[in-house]
């Protein structure tokens, strides 16, 4: 079975939102509302996925339902939120507090920040019980251990006594789910609960939510931007855009036969897991643009006085990238992929090994000797909001590198304007500040800043991970276009197999600091040899579906 197909027409309605309108506080009716007359229902046992790009109002919908809209910033101006027979909007703060956990509860994206770091997790779950009922100490503990068993935590007695930082990300999210479900609420709101997790952990959490839902008959409102996750978990999908509900349909109908143009464009932007066709043209002659040999990085090496335990963050990593080609490093968090990128950039010093950029060995150069060679290799970071100095105009950021190379300011500025056009932004963007741009635009600026140095190698460290899929596709296209125009080699670090499949010629799979598989993208993704690679590919959500073409993957081959 590809999708869930159960019908919920006979199930009782749990949540019914009618004409919900949310506005910015203190603005008049002429300003476009944040949520514009949203109406939908969720029935018992049903999973409704709310999808849309950032800013579409997904989270505002969930916060409004929980009564957690930021005071003084957003307010409900119209509509009803009915949970059973109760209109949640008419409740007092105290009544609403009583409703939460008992009747509706929420799981957030980042389990580390949602848990209290100085409290044992067992006590935190007990706190939920304390607020809502009187139980003896023994009963309380029994119930907590029971729910911890239900969310499949290992060694519950030990974890009961653990602090959040002693648990893994997946375990923390399980604790959050346990807290949310211990009072058996009718409605669970999950706001991007797996976005911060690795794919294999994500898969476990998704199946856990589905299992508990089955068991308790909970209605689930699942917020996500990941179409793969939608395909895995949804009964019904609702697409939001700019605070409006544009389409609602059962999952298979929506993915197979989307009606609205916006839904179609969302689905088309989902990168396919099918690797890009191999490039026919031969890479230009000459040595590789970047050559890494036996790179090792050990953290916490023995100090002068103490022999601390060491962590091998990267071990014997070797690869070459020819000019004009892209090599991807894929792996989960902690696999050492970013360590490799930072060693190559010499943002950290490699413990052993050789890094040759444009024919020069840079692994052992001193900081000062390295500076003239920096121009050959540039980096684009993950977080577009932090990779530009917020106090500087875009132009000033763009000319920083060229000025270091001794270019005069006027010509560097002229070049900056050209670069803006090259990455698809207006030329007058150079006079503006980073906060005036969206995430995708900022990533374009960061790419322009790197390109301004005319590098031989561009390192993209999760460069599209923080972006919406449609923006992601545009930035990937931009990188591809720049590569063809300028012939740069790209080292692309990502945890997302879909992205890797779209842009990489070759792929390296890393696990715990080691390279476990290395080969042509097509070969590695289509016919993985190492069990770890296989588990990664199997965990990729919605891998059997070709979102962009609204059909099963391989349907073309079958025809």
């Amino acid at each position, binding site marked *: 079975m590809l999708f869930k197909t159960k019908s919920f027409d006979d199930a009782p309605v749990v949540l019914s939102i009618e004409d919900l309108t949310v506005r910015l506080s203190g603005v008049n009716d002429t300003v476009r509302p944040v949520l514009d007359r949203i109406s939908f229902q969720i029935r018992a046992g049903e999973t409704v996925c709310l999808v849309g790009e*950032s800013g579409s109002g997904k989270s505002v919908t969930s916060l409004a339902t929980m009564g957690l809209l930021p005071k003084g910033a957003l307010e409900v101006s119209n509509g009803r939120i009915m949970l059973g027979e109760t209109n949640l909007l008419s409740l007092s703060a105290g009544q609403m507090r009583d409703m939460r956990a008992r009747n509706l509860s929420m799981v957030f994206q980042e389990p580390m920040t949602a848990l209290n770091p100085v409290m044992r997790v067992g006590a935190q779950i007990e706190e939920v019980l304390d607020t809502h009922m009187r139980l003896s100490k023994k009963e309380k503990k029994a119930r907590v251990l029971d729910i911890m068993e239900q969310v499949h935590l290992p060694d519950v007695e030990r974890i009961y006594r653990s602090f959040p930082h002693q648990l893994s990300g997946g375990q923390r999210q399980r604790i959050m789910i346990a807290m949310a479900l211990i009072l058996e609420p009718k409605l669970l709101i999950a706001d991007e609960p797996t976005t911060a997790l690795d794919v294999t952990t994500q898969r476990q959490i998704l199946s856990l939510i589905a299992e508990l839902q089955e068991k308790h008959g909970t209605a689930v409102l699942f917020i996500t931007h990941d179409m793969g996750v939608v395909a895995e978990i949804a009964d019904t999908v609702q697409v939001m855009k700019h605070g409006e509900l544009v389409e609602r349909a059962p999952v298979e109908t929506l993915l197979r036969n989307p009606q609205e143009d916006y839904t179609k464009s969302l689905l088309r932007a989902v990168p396919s897991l099918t690797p890009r066709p191999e490039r026919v043209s031969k890479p230009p002659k000459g040595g590789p643009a970047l050559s890494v040999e036996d790179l090792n990085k050990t953290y916490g090496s023995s100090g002068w006085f103490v022999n601390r335990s060491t962590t091998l963050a990267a071990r014997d990593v070797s690869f070459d990238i020819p000019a004009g080609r892209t090599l991807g490093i894929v792996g989960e968090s902690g696999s050492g992929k970013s360590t490799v990128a930072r060693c190559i950039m010499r943002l950290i010093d490699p413990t052993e090994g050789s890094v040759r950029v444009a024919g020069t060995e840079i692994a052992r150069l001193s900081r000062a000797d390295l500076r003239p060679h920096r121009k050959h290799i540039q980096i684009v970071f993950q977080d577009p909001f932090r990779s530009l100095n917020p106090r500087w105009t875009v132009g000033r950021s763009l000319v920083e590198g060229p000025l*270091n190379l001794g270019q005069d300011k006027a010509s560097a500025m002229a070049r900056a304007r050209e670069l803006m056009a090259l990455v698809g932004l207006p030329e007058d963007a150079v006079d503006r500040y980073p906060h005036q741009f969206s995430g995708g635009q900022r990533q374009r600026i960061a790419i322009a800043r790197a390109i301004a140095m005319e590098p031989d190698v561009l390192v993209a460290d999760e460069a599209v991970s923080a972006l919406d899929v449609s923006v992601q596709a545009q930035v990937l296209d931009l990188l591809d276009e720049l590569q063809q125009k300028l012939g740069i080699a790209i080292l692309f670090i990502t945890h997302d197999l879909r992205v890797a499949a779209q842009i990489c010629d070759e792929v390296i799979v890393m696990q715990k600091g080691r390279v476990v598989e290395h080969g042509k993208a097509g070969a590695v993704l289509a016919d993985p040899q190492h069990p770890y690679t296989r588990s990664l590919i199997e965990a990729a959500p919605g891998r059997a579906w070709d979102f962009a073409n609204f059909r099963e993957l391989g349907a073309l081959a079958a025809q």
Partner: protein
Amino acid sequence: MSDAMTPASRLQPVLGLLSLPGQMRRLGGGPMIAALVLVLIVIAAIFAPLYIPHDPLTINATQRLKGPSEMFPLGTDAFGRDLFSRVVMGARVSLFIGVGAAVVSVALGLAIGLVSGFFRLADAIIMRFMDALMAIPSILLAIALVALNGPSLWSVIAAITLPEIPRVVRLVRSVVLSVREEPYVEAAISLGSSMPKILWQHLMPNTLAPLTVQGTYICASAILTEAILSFLGAGVSTEIPTWGNIMAEGRVYFQIKPSLIFWPGLMLSLCILSINLLGDTARDLLDPRLRKREG
């Protein structure tokens, strides 16, 4: 949603600095009065030589310990010197020491803190030295410096500044430590910017807001310390009128003529209260996280 809010909150300190006067107006009474009092004291101190009725140093044996009169607005001290002239002239020395100590300790602390935050090896050495410096009581240091160099304005400023530097260094260092992990700083390294350039252009601006706040506190505490040192006889030479000196000399006659201590004491309290109030206001405006919850 949360992503969209980050840049705005990060920009807050900069924007806060720019719109400081505008925001001040909205803050209402307290800070406005404090600013007014401080401006009056500063103007009074700067133009003191133009309007004081008597030379604050002229001794007049016939006019000892007189009460307020037309000739002597606040009366005279034990040597027949005009108390009013002495108090306003004392403001000049006190304010100079306050501002001087703040500027010197912030400037030195900033330079040392930037280096210490960015270079690990330097950090280990500098911070141990700073720890040692913090262990020296400023009064003791002042007495030692005055004993070595004689009682001068500069020994006093040095004695007040030295123990303040480690505090500024720690503040700057902590800002640098957190900001240097920002991708935009790493990008600057990748672009081949030199260390001094990165320190000055990328990291330093982040320290300005907390330093403005810290500077006002140092200024207030320096004025107070100077008064204490002068009172103990370890400060500026006794001929120069400072608030501390005037109070020290008036101590003996406190029972006969309390105004000798009351007026300089009142000026000192008003001055320090205003500076601290303004410091709190600046902190609230520049660093919204520390602001007390309203209502």
